[in-house]
């Protein structure tokens, strides 16, 4: 058990646990699995009711804020007490391509040479961290869901609009990975 907890978990363990979250939330309180709506509730809770998109009773969605608080707490527990001792074992080909694009440090969860406070105001850092984050928040709300709400919950409920959204998530990612990042990183 201790060994299992200190090693990275295989895909099927993660997949099963994520999948179980869908019926768990439905059975606990008729809630649909989804993370990105929390971004809307955070805005609604902080803003005066001037914009229609943010004027609704966000307090009825308190469960979702507890849910994301749980994710933060889970990240804390895993990051401090169940830490994966080795960095992710990344495919050799991805490493090779990224090395050609100037990334040399593969010893962390993310490229620390690009993701740090110093590079925040360099062109690369600004695009990756700030523009990237902005697009995540803007895009998920525009699409009405993210990987959890559309790709896991929506597909679980056989919703074809969620399939369209998921395909677009992937297409966007492919475009960025294959056509934008090579120029941005070099």
């Amino acid at each position, binding site marked *: 058990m201790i060994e299992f907890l200190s090693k990275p978990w295989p895909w099927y363990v993660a997949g099963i646990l994520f999948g179980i979250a869908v019926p768990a*939330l439905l*059975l606990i309180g008729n809630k649909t699995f989804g993370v990105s709506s929390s971004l809307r509730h955070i805005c609604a809770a902080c803003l005066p009711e001037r914009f229609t998109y943010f004027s609704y009773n966000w307090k009825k969605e308190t469960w979702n804020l507890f849910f994301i608080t749980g994710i933060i707490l889970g990240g804390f527990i895993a*990051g401090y007490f169940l830490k994966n001792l080795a960095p992710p074992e*990344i495919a050799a080909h991805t490493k090779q391509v990224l090395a050609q694009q100037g990334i040399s440090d593969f010893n962390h969860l993310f490229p620390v040479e690009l993701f740090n406070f110093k590079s925040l105001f360099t062109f690369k850092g600004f695009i990756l961290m700030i523009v*990237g984050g902005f697009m995540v928040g803007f895009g998920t709300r*525009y699409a009405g869901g993210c990987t959890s709400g559309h790709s896991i919950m929506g597909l679980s409920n056989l919703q074809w609009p969620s399939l369209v959204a998921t395909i677009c998530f992937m297409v966007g990612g492919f475009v960025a990975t294959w056509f934008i990042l090579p120029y941005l990183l070099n």
Partner: protein
Amino acid sequence: MNNQITSDEFNPDYKVSSDFSIIKNIPFLLVGVVFGITLVKAEVVSWFRIQEMFRFDSFHMYGVIGTAVVVGMISVAIIKRFKMKTIQGEEIKIEPKKFSISQIFGGLIFGIGWAFTGACPGPLFALVGSGFAILFVSLLSAIIGTLVYGIFKDKLPH
């Protein structure tokens, strides 16, 4: 905050004044904890793992999402087939998703952001919890992205 709860209790339209109840919300918090731990332990929070996925160099992320969808699909089918109820005895209802062009535009925008930050919203929260302060900047930026979307929503094609 306390004032708001009190005013809600006096508002007849607001039936569920216990939405703020900590006890009632603890189960959702616990589901979040398991989700957050798993995101980190299975390296879904890794920028490199996302790069691998978009480069088709690894099965890992496809396995994670694929398994989750299969487990979710079977669960939802069972819940519908047996008309299962929530633990409070409520009927389980899942809102259908309506198609609109916004899923295409929003989806593409999110996809690009996902490749840049290497994180979708769940991992952003989990990474912040793991103590990576730098990702808090991306999370804040995501909240601002949502805010800007909300402000300009009516001017965008839907």
